[in-house]
């Protein structure tokens, strides 16, 4: 630790970071805390039942995580842009039901299973996108606040799912269920696709101009407009993206059940928002990181599944989830400063 002349090299005072400050900074990093909580939960559930650390159980956990993460990603985009989307759960239901009708029709014409699933995916995404367009029109053209606009489509979507399905499941596709269980190691093919979409959308949020616009609009829409961003167009696109992701989740549930259930996804918007809040995304917009949302969704999944796994009374599930959300909000309020947009 000396220079060429043998004199000890002294670091400038301002460069020295005492270890205590480093520890404090690490603890203040919500993603780190969430990661520690996640690991602690895994260790706890594993200590209660050794079967928890098996390939089969981790496959279950990842599948359940995938049933939530696309909705949570959708909410992350929407909430960072300064809005909220209450309709994603209903969109899962209506897209799953309509997609199931389309797939039933194809199956009755003896179309191959792969083609059926591909068309079903397109139809589900299309229905989700259509709901997103409706949200976008209500928000950017009719000037409804996002809460009200998406409340409208939440109610209408849930109702239409029942109308189309007549209250019963649509279709029966055992081959889809069988396919949903195939894959490699702890990843089914279906979950691999969902994880790939999540990674791509995470990169878009943090490493593209589109993502930066999202943070800018959520931080200060007026300033973003002055800076030349087409705010209405961007906001509209965010709701369409959220709708498409909800539609894809509808397809995800179809494959798991082998049918389009009109109740699938109903109420899941609250789980998605919970994951986002746990992950540290600010509900006032402009602040958040996708890794936080991912960790939030993982924690929710592990808690929900783990409590069943160790045979705890179901009533405790909601209590524990509520406590975790409260803890996350408290952690956010204790942070020394708000994290930067794409920090």
């Amino acid at each position, binding site marked *: 630790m000396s220079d060429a002349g043998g004199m000890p090299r002294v670091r400038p005072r301002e460069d020295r970071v005492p270890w205590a400050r480093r520890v404090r900074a690490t603890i203040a990093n919500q993603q780190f805390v969430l990661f520690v909580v996640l690991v602690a939960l895994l260790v706890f559930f594993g200590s209660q*039942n050794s*079967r*928890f650390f*098996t390939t*089969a*159980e981790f496959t*279950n956990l990842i*599948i*359940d995580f995938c*049933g939530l993460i696309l909705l949570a990603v959708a909410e992350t985009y929407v909430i960072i842009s300064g809005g909220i989307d209450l309709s994603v759960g209903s969109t899962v239901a209506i897209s799953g039901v309509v997609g199931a009708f389309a797939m039933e029709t194809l199956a009755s014409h003896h179309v191959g299973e792969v083609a059926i699933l591909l068309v079903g995916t397109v139809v589900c995404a299309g229905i989700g996108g259509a709901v997103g367009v409706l949200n976008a029109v209500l928000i950017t053209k009719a000037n409804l606040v996002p809460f009200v606009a998406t409340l409208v489509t939440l*109610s209408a979507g*849930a*109702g239409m799912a*029942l*109308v*189309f399905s*007549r*209250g*019963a*499941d649509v279709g*029966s596709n*055992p081959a889809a*269920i*069988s396919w*949903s*269980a195939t894959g490699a190691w702890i990843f089914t093919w279906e979950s691999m696709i969902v994880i790939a979409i999540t990674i791509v959308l995470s990169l878009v949020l943090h490493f593209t101009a589109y993502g930066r616009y999202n943070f800018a609009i959520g931080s200060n829409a007026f300033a973003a407009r002055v800076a030349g961003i087409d705010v209405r167009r961007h906001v509209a696109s965010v709701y369409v993206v959220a709708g498409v992701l909800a539609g894809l989740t509808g397809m995800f*549930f179809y494959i*798991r*059940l*082998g*049918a389009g*259930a*009109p*109740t*699938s*996804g*109903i*109420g899941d918007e609250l789980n998605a928002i919970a994951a986002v809040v746990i992950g540290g995304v600010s509900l006032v917009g402009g602040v958040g990181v996708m890794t936080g949302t991912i960790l939030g969704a993982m924690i929710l999944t592990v808690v*929900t*599944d783990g409590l*069943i*796994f*160790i*045979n*705890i*009374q*179901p*009533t405790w*599930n909601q209590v524990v989830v509520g406590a975790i959300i409260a803890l996350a909000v408290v952690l956010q309020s204790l942070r020394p400063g708000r994290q930067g947009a794409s920090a």
Partner: protein
Amino acid sequence: MFSSRSMRLFKGVVTASVVTASVVALSAAGASATSPHAAVPRAKKLVVAFEVGSEADPFFQSMYVGASAEAKKLGVTLIWQGDPVNYSPATQIPIVEQLLALKPNALIIAPTDPKALEPYTTQAIKQGALVLNVDSGQANQKPITAWVTGNNVQGGTEAAQALASAMGYATNCTASSPCTVAVGVSSITTSTDAARVAGFDAELKKKYPHIVALNPIVSQSQPSVAQSGFSQDISAHNLKGIFAVDGTDAEGAASAIAASGKTDIKVVAYDAYATNIASMQAGKIAAIIAQQPTLEGKLIVQYAVTKLRNPKAKVPHLTTLPNILLTPASSAATLAKYQYVAS
């Protein structure tokens, strides 16, 4: 484009506005209340309001078939209402309030809570209507004219026997190697679900000590949630059987078993939906416990009209219809008789 049943479902989504419109229409037509317990002349067309919990449920759809046929036969006006999805007093109470504004001659209600609806029963009686319960019943039965329900405790008992038989209790379940079974309910607060689980647990305790029932998973009427919960139970335990307390859980159980590949797990499920009967015939469900919703709907309308036309007529206060055990050995005629039908 939509069938009459679909339209009925759609009306359920906008229940409040539809019922309000009906209030105006009937008021304009001069509808008036009768004095308490006075016989209504045959010339005057009786109005019977019928409110159920989750109207889109095939169980209640089947009840509608019996109720509407009997109303037509007896020449009375039937107003059928209910929240399309939610089985909750929070959604049921506003609908009851609107129905009472119609001044019906009788109110038939399937209360979603044993006590929360009692003030509305009192109000109905004060304005001269008879009040009858169907399926579930309120705690205080004194003011209730008649109650027609299924024997859910007996159904739970039958389920325990059927599951023990399907698992080969005598040879496969021992003190050193007990059989673990999972239980799935839609809600732990619903009286019918609770009664079925109570009957099931009591029978296990009495006759099958080597069967261990896990804490119930709660599906919230969503098959994907049921599937996720059962997947956890399958992963955590060497599961031998599943008691699916309603049709939603039956669907979730079938999907979870198919995805896990553990097809030796035996399922006994409530409710004779067409899909459940098809699953039983395909070997995925060992037995079905069927209720008799069509008969319940028919009898309760019959009792209401009988008492309205002749207050001195005797109708049974409590009619408990047995739950029926259906197995793959049941005849086609028996299956057809008990399969839930839709209008």
